[in-house]
């Protein structure tokens, strides 16, 4: 590893045109081995989409080749078709946005019939995100998905409210989170990632609980709970009152979560996300301990963001003389060798 002395930047919204003109004479892009292993699954590269920010991949096809990504993470699917909430469903916030979609989707039957086969036919690896209101729903979804062609991993979105437990979110309770993971693991033929919420007092405790219950890895972070009030109507902007905050605004929180969990559970694979806009943003997550990253809200700013982030990451690694992506995973926890 050869960190450079020169100064680079995490991105605001877009890379600034002037900051990367200098060449540091590192290795050429092509020689960087971008292969990563996420929860035992080998991926050609570490850049994925984020659940809910790429639908089931098809809408992105005009802008990128889904097979060129590490994997496509699909919008969380539920057992039944869901309408989602009333509108307005979003509000822009400084360097971020709130969403309150309410998990609109076609349900698992339509997903298995139309969406997953489309991804498989394109040669894309699918990380299928599942969500439910009860442990049984999660288990049933895992059962339905078992053996489906194209399925690489399951991502368990435990950030939805637990119907049985006064609406408390699974991911906020170590026991409820573990129950879901255990039930999904019992049914799943592929590795399982538990997706964690940052809105907890101790994310390491939730992480540990999921791992103990059998999670093969962790995805983090989901959105932060936020709210905007309309200063003309004097009422909440979102029909759902509160919504999930995403985008660059939350990146420092996301990097911190990945760092904390990797420090406490260094052997546990992490899919990192939260505000990634550029290759250098992705690099921060890898250095903090993520084996791969999801690019979410950035897609709304730039539909080709995931492939751009991948290309930028490759270039930045090459500039730093890195030949294997896996060498940087967790590197921020190690004292630099001089």
């Amino acid at each position, binding site marked *: 590893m050869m960190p450079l002395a020169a100064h680079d930047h995490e991105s*605001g*919204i*877009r*890379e*600034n*045109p002037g900051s990367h003109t200098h060449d540091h004479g590192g290795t050429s892009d092509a020689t960087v081995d971008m292969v990563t292993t996420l929860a035992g699954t080998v991926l050609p590269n570490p850049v994925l989409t984020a659940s*809910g*920010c*790429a*639908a089931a991949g098809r*809408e*992105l096809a*005009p*802008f990128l080749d889904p097979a060129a990504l590490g994997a496509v993470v699909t*919008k969380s699917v*539920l057992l*039944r*078709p*869901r*309408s*989602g*909430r*009333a*509108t*307005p*469903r*979003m509000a*822009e916030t*400084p*360097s*971020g*946005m709130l*969403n309150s*979609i*309410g998990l*609109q*989707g076609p*349900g698992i039957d339509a997903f298995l019939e139309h969406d997953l086969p489309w991804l498989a036919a394109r040669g894309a690896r699918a990380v299928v995100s599942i969500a439910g*209101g009860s442990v049984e729903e999660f288990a049933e979804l895992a059962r339905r998905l078992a053996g489906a062609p194209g399925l690489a991993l399951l991502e368990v979105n435990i950030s*939805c*409210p*637990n*119907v049985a437990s006064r*609406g408390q979110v699974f991911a906020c309770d170590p026991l409820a989170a573990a129950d879901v993971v255990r039930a999904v693991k019992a049914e799943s033929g592929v590795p399982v990632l538990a997706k964690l919420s940052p809105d907890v007092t101790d994310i390491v405790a939730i992480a540990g609980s999921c791992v103990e219950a059998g999670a093969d890895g962790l995805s983090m972070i989901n959105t932060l709970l936020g709210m905007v009030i309309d200063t003309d109507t004097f009422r909440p902007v979102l*029909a759902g009152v509160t919504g999930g905050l995403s*985008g*660059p605004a939350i990146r420092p929180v996301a990097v911190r979560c990945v760092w904390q969990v990797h420090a406490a559970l260094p052997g546990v694979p992490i899919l990192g996300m939260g505000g990634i806009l550029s290759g250098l943003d992705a690099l921060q997550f890898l250095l903090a301990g993520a084996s791969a990253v999801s690019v979410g*809200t950035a*897609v*709304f*700013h*730039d*539909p080709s963001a995931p492939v751009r982030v991948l290309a930028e990451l490759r270039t930045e690694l090459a500039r730093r003389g890195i030949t294997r992506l896996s060498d940087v995973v967790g590197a921020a926890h190690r004292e630099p060798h001089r």
Partner: protein
Amino acid sequence: MSARVVSNEPAGAYHLITLDAPAVAAGAEPGQFIAAAVGGPQTALLLRRSFALYTADPATGLIQIVVAEHGPGTAWLVRVRPGTPLDVVGPLGRPFTLPAEPGTAVLVGGGYGSAPLFDLARRLRAIGSTVHMVVGAGSAERLFGTADARTVADSVVVTTDDGSVGVRGLVTDALPGLLGPRGVSAVYACGPMAMLRAVGETAASYDVPCEVAVEESMACGIGVCMTCVLPVVGVDGRSRMVRSCIEGPVFDAGRVRWKDVGTLPVDVLGADAMDGH
């Protein structure tokens, strides 16, 4: 996609922005829109802003949009100087449907909503249709394209709410006179949602098919985020929350459940699954 601002000039209450954007100009059809990144390289404004295409010329590679200053994004845009690079995605969305046969069309535009109708009028006339236009707004300076209208349409009615120019009243006040006698084959409309609803209802009462281009708050503009939905009745009679960015912005007015926009009707597909969580 990188475009460049060629000019940016006031046009009544709006700004007419011309962009050099060959890739957009190449494939654009009337009713489609572009999504522009706003605020410059260090912007805190994460989301793109959508604008209907006013013109798109594949020959010159130029496109034009008409921008009303509204919030911070449009405030930035109306001040952007010629020469500035502008990141745009497009053309996006479903365009207006051109008829297979020539006929008589009534095009109704409210405020900057008239912008996409002039290219539509040209295309309709090119296939031999007769085009009548109604261009309306709250007041004179909020009218857009009345001069254009006269060059592309067989007849033009201008309305303003305050009567400062043209006929005092709403665009819908002009519709009975057009739809009644003339054997109109289609109505096309773009403008504020309340106007679209009224135009759609009037067209329905005369049994004339009507297409409208709606305007819903959009986060992605490309169909991946599900923010831009409205309740629309499908061919199967089932209502669904439908994405206006990719399945619209042009809809059959008769299928949009206007009075339920902004709510979650209980009979919409999947509304029953919303209980509890």
